[in-house]
């Protein structure tokens, strides 16, 4: 019984206390707000981000000269903070639901309040929306280059999930000074996530977001969504896959036309 997986947020909160001696108090959330707002401000004022924003126009013009199309579908300068409830839910997913080592720690160790700023890589994030699929790679390389110039660790993942989600996720890891729960400050390495997606994917993503959030919190269903054609996930997720395929086709046509053009 001691190794039974916590089934919901309440039992997860109790498990954190019993197993790790970590009490989730109202002040835990306050502290999260305090830390994330500080990180967001510092990131927005960082050399990397100010350069990035300054370079948007140059990137756009360079892509235009190369392809004949504008790079960005919309201007993006907003930096977002992951809501505390989403962070907490994500730690439950990593520690419990998706932890194949249970009851032992996940491969990267337990995610607890004392390390979640450095272990969760999308606490602070932004989103770039480009017009076409090749714009994702173009922009990713620009971000990689800028990270190199500003001395930041860079990581890139091409996300392609079963549930129809596609996007390029870029991570710039920086060192931030954050307040502790009491009066001192400490330094942590924290990744800022930059998602790069296409205009079409972004449109559908807004529609599908609730499915991603809701599904990820659930335990395994008896019937997989791929077979449950009456479920909301069936239509929504396959729409994501189809759209990605269509975008690939669009790129192929564009590139063939480009080759034919003398």
């Amino acid at each position, binding site marked *: 019984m001691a190794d039974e997986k916590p089934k919901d947020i309440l039992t997860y909160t109790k498990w954190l206390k019993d197993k790790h001696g970590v009490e989730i108090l*109202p*002040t835990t959330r*306050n502290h999260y*707000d*305090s830390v994330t*707002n*500080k990180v967001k*401000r510092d990131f927005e004022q960082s050399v990397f981000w100010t350069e990035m924003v300054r370079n948007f126009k140059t990137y756009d013009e360079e892509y235009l000269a190369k392809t004949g199309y504008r790079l960005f579908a919309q201007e993006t300068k907003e930096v977002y903070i992951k809501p505390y409830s989403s962070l907490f839910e994500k730690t439950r997913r990593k520690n419990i639901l998706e932890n194949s080592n249970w009851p032992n720690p996940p491969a990267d160790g337990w995610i607890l309040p004392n390390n979640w700023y450095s272990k969760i890589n999308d606490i602070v994030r932004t989103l770039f929306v480009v017009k076409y699929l090749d714009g994702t790679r173009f922009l990713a390389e620009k971000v990689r280059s800028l990270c190199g110039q500003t001395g930041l660790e860079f990581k890139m993942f091409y996300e392609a999930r079963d549930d129809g989600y596609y996007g390029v996720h870029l991570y710039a890891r920086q060192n931030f*000074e954050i*307040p502790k729960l*009491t*009066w001192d*400050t400490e330094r942590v390495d924290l990744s800022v996530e930059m998602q790069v997606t296409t205009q079409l994917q972004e449109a559908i993503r807004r529609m599908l977001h609730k499915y991603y959030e809701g599904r990820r919190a659930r335990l395994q269903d008896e019937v997989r969504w791929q077979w449950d054609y009456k479920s909301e996930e069936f239509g929504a997720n396959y729409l994501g896959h189809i759209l990605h395929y269509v975008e690939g086709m669009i790129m192929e046509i564009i590139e063939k036309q480009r080759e034919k053009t003398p």
Partner: protein
Amino acid sequence: MKPEFVRYLESIGIYGALIVRIESIYKFFRSVCDEDIADIVVAEYVKEDESREYEELWLFSTNLVMLAAQFVTGDDFRLLPIRNIIFWKIQKSEYDFEKATAKSRMILEFHMPGSTFGSIRVSRENCDHLRDVFMKHIVPNVMSKP
């Protein structure tokens, strides 16, 4: 804004544009609150480079407590009655509750029914100010009967 508020803000290193910002928040709360705002507190902490990071602005009247969270950059305003405080908690460091020094630090937490609570963190001479606010607005509002 009351001159004593400006003097307080200047005493903790707040000048110019930030005072203008606080003045606008003060005006907002005055427009939605019938009561005179008796005291304000700026929650803050000291960073590695010894400068201050300002977090929230707290405003107290006889029956209400108002909060402007992350007031430097955003408009996130809250207001609630300050009565029936269930318990309070004070954590302090190098502070004798009489005269703060440059090393003094203090955190005040006060909890009300329904999981509502406030947490104010201050440093240096701001500890004396928070102590006074605590004595004036928190202590008299502690619920004496269940």
